[in-house]
């Protein structure tokens, strides 16, 4: 018996669009509800569906746990890096005004990069959490 056929077809169809939706939320956080956290969670949902449909081992072929840990650390570093950059450019920590000649452009750059860092960390950590939990439950 070919299990979960319907589920598989629908799930496979949805995964890319869920991820695209996540990216949309990431980049439109400035204009409407949304931002790095929500985007990260939604983007991670793409991997969640994949894990649920094909198992965590198979998801690990796509993004390994080690890779996810690197990304999750990278997100923190990106965020803090913006702060360090503004320190080095002579402002206070996380003062985006100094990132560009014009304060408003600086704020824009700062906010977009920072949100991107948030998104990286949240998406990777949530995927990581799910994969660790799911793997722990596998019959050995």
């Amino acid at each position, binding site marked *: 018996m070919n299990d979960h056929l319907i589920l598989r077809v629908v799930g496979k169809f949805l995964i890319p669009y869920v991820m695209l939706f996540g990216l949309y*939320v990431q980049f439109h*956080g*400035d*204009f*409407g*509800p*949304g*931002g790095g*956290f*929500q985007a990260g*969670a*939604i983007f*991670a*949902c793409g991997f*969640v569906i994949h894990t649920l449909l094909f198992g965590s*081992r*198979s998801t690990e*072929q796509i993004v390994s*746990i080690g890779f996810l*840990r690197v990304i*999750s*650390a990278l*997100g*923190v570093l990106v*965020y*803090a890096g913006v*702060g360090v950059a503004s320190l080095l450019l002579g402002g206070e*920590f*996380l003062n*985006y005004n100094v990132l560009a000649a014009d*304060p*408003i452009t600086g*704020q*824009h750059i*700062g*906010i977009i990069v*920072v*949100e991107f*860092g*948030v998104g990286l*960390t*949240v998406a*990777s*950590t*949530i995927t*990581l*959490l*799910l994969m*660790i*939990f*799911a*793997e*722990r*439950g596998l019959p050995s």
Partner: protein
Amino acid sequence: MMLAHLIDIFLLVFLAVISVALLRIKDLLTAVMIFGIYSLTSASLFMVLAAADVAFTEAAVGAGISIILMLATLAITGREEKIVERKFKLLPLIIVSITGATLLYGIRDLPPFGVASNPAQVHVAPRYIEQSAVETDIPNIVTSVLASYRGFDTLGEVVVIFTAGIGVALLIGRRRRLLTAKEASRHE
């Protein structure tokens, strides 16, 4: 605006009923599922209170992720709460009653609900509403406060998530990767 009140009342009653139900349910899977309703309802309530960003987060992060993690945990720990002969526990009840009474005392002097001249609405927040367009030029005030004015909080928040990742990986992360040859070849 009466409509908002109507929805508000309904949602609050839902929440109250659900929370009582959660207390009484023995089957853990049911409890988790009912908790899912609780989360989704609370997100609707946030919507009614005009907090779209919060509703978004509660739906995506709060409801979605917590529920899936809880299900994953239940898959390992089993779903039945053991039925023990419930000894009546007095102490928790006393603690909870005292806390509740204190809170009830505390809300006596709260400023009226939803009035624009409340202290919370006139002191710090107006600057965000009036100046953020000039200072950051970002239409979503929540984003500009989150990422710029209180950007340091958000950095802390990212670190919280990172810490959770580290913590879970330390606690239940796999020690060594053991991929059998079959599985490795499977993805070819």
